[in-house]
């Protein structure tokens, strides 16, 4: 087991999580909880894989994947913003809807061969840095580098721009925003859409770059749910989301690596000899999610950085207290 390789793979795996988490952060900052991330990711993975095959260009595939997830997110927008229904229920059903569409339309996609994938390359100069270069700047898919750019951009957008300030305000106290003549409903539709686009991008990153192919639910295998959890761990901050995403990516990779060798730390590797123990290993990242979430939210409480105050509450004009 080579640490650089594990971390390198972790960064690659974490990129899908990162995209989905950033998208959900933007959506939740506008005051809308969208639990349909898993389904939207799967839809993005399926659509982009199929479209890349059809058009022979992975970038066109990604575009379709993002749009498909963005469009399906508008179902959630209509139900929660316009109809003001419960966001948890709507998000869960969106998840079933998007998953269902992906499974039906994605039937048979796993038999495709030679689907064009996102190219991989080294970053000149930066990849020469010892260790860091190997982990972050060598042999990665183009999407990984897109991820690096997106983190500071998202942070800057949220914290240092006027639209970002409005985004924060609409998730904290929508009536103050409404009183200033800004369209609360329009903003929420928009950021649900952006969340959908990024979840789709996360899915596309899996099927066209990280672990190519479309294998029904196993494509995303619950990463959408981890992304929802990571948002809390990240305290709605893109920089922390990047850390979370890459750490979880590395963890998922480490679990695979532990299963591989016959000897582990000089002893016979129980995970190698008994395949059932492997299930325990595969469970670890998810168990770890739970633990990190508990720690993360306790810390958030202590530091007074709670969730956006209006998260999960429909905005109804003129109602008291909102």
């Amino acid at each position, binding site marked *: 087991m080579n640490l650089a390789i594990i971390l390198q793979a972790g960064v690659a795996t974490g990129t899908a999580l990162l995209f989905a988490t950033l998208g959900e952060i933007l959506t939740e900052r506008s005051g809308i909880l969208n639990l349909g991330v898993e389904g939207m990711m799967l839809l993005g993975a399926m659509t982009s894989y199929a479209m890349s095959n059809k058009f022979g260009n992975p970038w066109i595939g990604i575009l379709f994947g993002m749009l498909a997830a963005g469009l399906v997110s508008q179902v959630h927008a209509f139900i929660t913003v316009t109809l003001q229904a419960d966001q948890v229920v709507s998000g869960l059903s969106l998840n079933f809807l998007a998953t269902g569409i992906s499974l039906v339309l994605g039937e048979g996609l796993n038999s495709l061969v030679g689907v064009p994938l996102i190219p991989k390359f080294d970053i000149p100069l930066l990849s020469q840095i010892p260790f860091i270069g190997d982990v972050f700047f060598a042999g990665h898919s183009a999407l990984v580098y897109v991820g690096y750019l997106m983190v500071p951009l998202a942070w800057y957008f949220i914290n*240092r*721009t*006027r639209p*970002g*300030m409005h985004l924060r305000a609409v998730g*904290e106290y929508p009536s103050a925003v409404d009183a*200033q*003549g*800004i369209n609360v409903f329009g903003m929420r539709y928009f950021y649900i859409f952006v969340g959908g686009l990024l979840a789709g991008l996360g899915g596309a990153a899996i099927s066209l770059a990280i672990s190519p192919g479309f294998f029904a639910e196993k494509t995303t295998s619950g990463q959408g749910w981890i992304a929802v959890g990571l948002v809390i761990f990240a305290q709605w901050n893109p920089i922390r989301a990047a850390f979370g995403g890459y750490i979880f990516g590395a963890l998922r990779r480490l679990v695979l690596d532990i299963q591989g060798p016959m000897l582990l730390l000089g002893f016979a590797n129980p995970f190698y000899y008994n395949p059932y123990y492997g299930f325990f290993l595969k469970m670890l990242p998810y168990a770890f999610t739970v633990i990190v979430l508990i720690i993360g939210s306790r810390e958030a409480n202590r530091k007074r950085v709670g969730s956006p105050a209006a998260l999960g509450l429909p905005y109804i004009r003129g109602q008291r207290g909102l």
Partner: protein
Amino acid sequence: MEMVSTMDQENEVRECRNVVCMRGIVKHFPGVLANDHVDFELREGEVHALLGENGAGKSTLMNILAGLYRQDEGLIEVNGKEVKFNSPRDAIAAGIGMVHQHFMLVPSQSVTENILLGLSEPRFRLNLPHYDAVVAQMAEEYGLHVDPRAKIWQLSVGEQQRVELLKMLYRGAEILIMDEPTAVLAPSEIDDLFVTLRAMTQKGKSITFISHKLHEVMAISNRVTVLRKGKVTSSGINIADTSRAGLANLMVGREVVFRVDKNEQEPGDVILSVDNIHAENNKGLKALNGITLNVRAGEIVGLAGVAGNGQRELADVITGLRKASEGQVIIGGEDITNLSPKAGIRKGVSHIPEDRTHVGTAPNLSVTDNVIMKNYTEEPIGKGWMVNDTAATKYARELKKAFDIIVPNVHTSVRLLSGGNLQKVILAREISKKPELLIAMQPTRGLDVGAIEGVQRLLLLQREAGSAVLLVSEELEELLSLSDRIYVIYEGEIMGEVADGDIEKIGLMMTGMQMEDIRLQGEKSNE
């Protein structure tokens, strides 16, 4: 346009100095005529109070001027030009800004960010340090002291109000509407606000001040317009030409008794006896430091003091909502210290809490559910583990009638009720079963004159019926007129007890002087 200018000439004398003229404003709401041909004029550089009871139509009128509602009839002129507002944005563009009773501020954002919210400048990049400086300069100019970089949640209510004012000034408002600005402020903050308002009028701003507190209207305004049930009862009279009693009469349409009549009666046995109580506040700091007092049957005992000196903690300890670390609470001869609130309720303790909306009621539940909260287990409302809905509704209807709760029906959620009606719901629940002991925390705060009188009358009725009443209030006048005796609390200690209503002594004790010291001083000066 022609029409308007001829009208201008006709009314020239009245028009020329007025920044706002509202003429014949009519506004209907379903089932209510909120404004019935209301005229209102605001002169440049004046503070014009709009006085009226809750529901008199003051806020409606000002919401029309601020562009939140549209009038059904009538016209509005600003600086001599007729205006039609479709949204608050239009009103702000015409220089009219309104500071609402509930502040429209984002708690997690800074003062500057809140001021910039919704403006088209800056375009994209938020250069906060630059705007911080602009806001700081503006704050300096108007004497609205607040740190531009502070987050709203860190600010006191008074400071938040200043942010709202800055927000309007930043948008170029020349005409400011303040909807009951003092309702949320502490007495010292009210003084600061008045200083600020005067400073602003000196800079040529014109201010409308909505209130139902007579002494404030007398203190701050130049002129006053009184509304009653949607109609103007007195338009733009000079404050010098009027009196409190006269205004009160205009406001409620009948003589208001400021001195409530209280019959002489001998108090009975001691019902509540609090002995050397120590307790902590929510932050874990010492809030009560050895409180000892007693209340007898058939008397009202006042507890005076500036807010935050332990009144709430004391009420909590007596009603079982807070643990005492030391001392005893004895009610009707039984030690109930640190028992559950239910133990107190069984001993006949009733509680009118300070926070009506969160402690006093469950906002989303109906009037019925709120009034049966204490006796839902008793026949005929409670039967075994069931609640008899028919009986509960019948009971609620009786109370609605008896306490004159104005609500379409008893199934309405109480969150839709006005402050006065909400208090009636609480009173109905708390005193309909004659309580042994009534703890009333700020029972009249935020209510209009008519409602205050009603609440005070009910408290006196409890006294006549032989209940022991502990009245906690910041309104000295109220304490003096209702109470038989008054304790003064300061930093968790009782400074002394006054039975003769000596307001000077009470004032001294409220600032931390012990009764003993006052007496000694008095003796010295006599020598």
